[in-house]
C-alpha cells in the first residue's frame, strides 16, 4: 500500500487549521459565519468518501461533487446581484484562461501546474476585479467545472467516447484545491496591499 509522506500530511493538516483558526478574516471577507465555513469544509472532506454514479456514456457524477456545487449555489444565492454576476463572469474568465493555457503551454506541468492553475487565476482575477474572496472561491470551483464540461463537448464533437467524472478525486482534486488557493491568493494580496499602505502612510481602503 502506498503511504503519503509525513510532510504532505502536515501540509494538509496545517491548511485545514489555517482555514479554521487563522482564517477568521477570510471567513469574514466571504461574509460567512464560522459555522457555515466549518460545514463547507466538512462537506468537502466527507465528500471524499462518497461513490461515483454513472449518468450516461459521457458523464459520471461523484457524489462528493455535490458538496462544492451546493456551496457555490449557497454562496451565489446569498449575495447581491452585482456580486453574483461578477462571480459568474470571473468563473467564465477562469475557464477561458485554464482552457487556453491547457492548449497553449507545453504538455509538461512545469510552468503553471494545471492542477493549480484554476485556483491561481481565480485568486488574481477575483482580487483585481473587486477584491472579492467570495468570487475567488466560487470561480475556483466553477472554473474547473466549466472546463470539464467544455472538454467533454470538445471530445463529443470529434467523436471520442470518454466519460467525464464530475468531482471525482475528493479532497485532493483540482475542484477542491482551487477555491482554497484562490481565496488564499486574494487574501495574501489584500494583506500585502493593506500593509504596504500602512508602511507608506496611505489610507486603508480595505
Amino acid at each position: 500500500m502506498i503511504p503519503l509522506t509525513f510532510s504532505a500530511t502536515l501540509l494538509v493538516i496545517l491548511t485545514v487549521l489555517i482555514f479554521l483558526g487563522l482564517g477568521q478574516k477570510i471567513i469574514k471577507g466571504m461574509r460567512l459565519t464560522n459555522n457555515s465555513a466549518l460545514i463547507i469544509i466538512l462537506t468537502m472532506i466527507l465528500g471524499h468518501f462518497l461513490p461515483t454514479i454513472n449518468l450516461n456514456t459521457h458523464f459520471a457524477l461523484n457524489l462528493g461533487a455535490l458538496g462544492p456545487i451546493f456551496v457555490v449555489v449557497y454562496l451565489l444565492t446569498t449575495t447581491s446581484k452585482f456580486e453574483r454576476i461578477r462571480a459568474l463572469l470571473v468563473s467564465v474568465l477562469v475557464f477561458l484562461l485554464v482552457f487556453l493555457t491547457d492548449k497553449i503551454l507545453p504538455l509538461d506541468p512545469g510552468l503553471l501546474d494545471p492542477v493549480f492553475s484554476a485556483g491561481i487565476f481565480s485568486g488574481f482575477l477575483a482580487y483585481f476585479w473587486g477584491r472579492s474572496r467570495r468570487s475567488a472561491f466560487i470561480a475556483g470551483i466553477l472554473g474547473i467545472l466549466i472546463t470539464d464540461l467544455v472538454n467533454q463537448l470538445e471530445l463529443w464533437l470529434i467523436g471520442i467516447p470518454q466519460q467525464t467524472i464530475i468531482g471525482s478525486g475528493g479532497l485532493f482534486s483540482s475542484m477542491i484545491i482551487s477555491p482554497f488557493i484562490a481565496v488564499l491568493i486574494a487574501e495574501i494580496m489584500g494583506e500585502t496591499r493593506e500593509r504596504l499602505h500602512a508602511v507608506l502612510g496611505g489610507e486603508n481602503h480595505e
Partner: protein
Amino acid sequence: MSKKSITITLFLSFFLCGRFASCTAEETWSRPLPAGEFYTLYDEDQNLLLETGHQIHLKDQYLSGDNRLFEVVHVDEEKKVATANFVEEIELKIFSWTDIQEELGLSVIEAASKEQKRGKIALYHTHNAESYMPTDGSDSINGKGGVHKVGTVFSEALSNMGIEVLYSERLHLPHDRGAYRRSRETVLELLSKNPDAIFDLHRDAAPKSAYAIQLGDEWMTSIQFVVGRQNQNLGINRKYAQSLKKIADDLYPGLIKGIFYGKGNYNQDLTPLSLLLEVGAHTNSRDAAERGISLFAEVVDYYFYGPSAEASGVGQSKVARRSIFGLVIFITSGTIVFYIINVGGFKSAWKRLSTSLSRLKVK
C-alpha cells in the same frame, strides 16, 4: 471594479485567444512537440546526454545511464538545446521498499499471508493518445493510442508473475496539459485500492536512436524514468527511482536509459512510490517498446517481491497500513478537535451547533 482591472483582464483574454486562434486543431492535438522536434541536452564538453520531448528547464537534473548526475545550467529555447554541468558520480544503492516505508515514518505491520505473496501494482496513462509511428501509423491516435498496448503487455507480464495489476485505461483526453489535472482523479482512485506502487506509462518524442538498445540478440527500447522536482516526495522518489535503476542495471544493463528530474510534479505529490515511465519514443516500433517493458516487469517484481525485498530483513510480509482514507479521517478528527478548542470546549461547541441547527430549522 475599476477600468484598469477590466482592461488587464480583457487584454489577457484576448492575448490568449489570439494565440489559440493561430493554432489549428491538428497542432493542438499533436502538442507539445510534433515529430522531429525535441530538446537536446549536452554536457560541458558538448557530449550528447539526452534527447527528449520533455521541456528542459534550468536546474533540471539528469542521471545518465552510467550514473553521472548533471544539472542544467543553460537552455536555448529557440534551438531547444540545453547544457548541463557535471555534478557528481552516483553510486547507486538499493533502498528496499520496507526501508522506504520506514523512512516515511510509517508503522510497519504484518499484512500479507504466505499464500498472498505478491501485492498490487497500479498502471495508468496520462497521455492516452501517445503512439509509435512505425507500427501504429501515427505518433498520436485520438483515443487509446499504442501506449495502451504497451501497458497491456506490462500488465500481463506482471500478472504472469502473480502480481495483482490495477490497470486503468481511463482516457484523459484531450491530449493537452490539462491531462495531468484529469489523470489526478485516476491516480486517487487507484490509490484508494492500496497498490504497492503506481506507474504512469508514456512514450517520449525523440529520435529512434535515443531509445533503441540491443540486449542479447533482441532489439528493444530502453526506458527512462521521469521524476518531478516540484513535489514534496522528491527525496523518496529519488531513492525509489535509483533503487529500481540499480536492480535493472544488475539484471539488464542498459534497460534504464536514465532518470530525468524535471520541473513539475506529474501528480507524484500524491504518493512517493509513483514513477513516470517513458517507454521508447514515437520513432521506435511498439514491438520494441513491448519487449523493453516486459523486462522491466521483472525488475519491478524483483524489487517489490523478490530478493530485494527479502534482503531488507523484514521481508515482503510487512507493509505499511496508512492510506489516504486514514489521512482523511485524521484530518477530520483534527478539524473537529481544533474547532472544539477554538470555541472553548465541548459545551460551547455543542451550543453553537445547536443554535445553528435551530436557525436552519426555523428558516
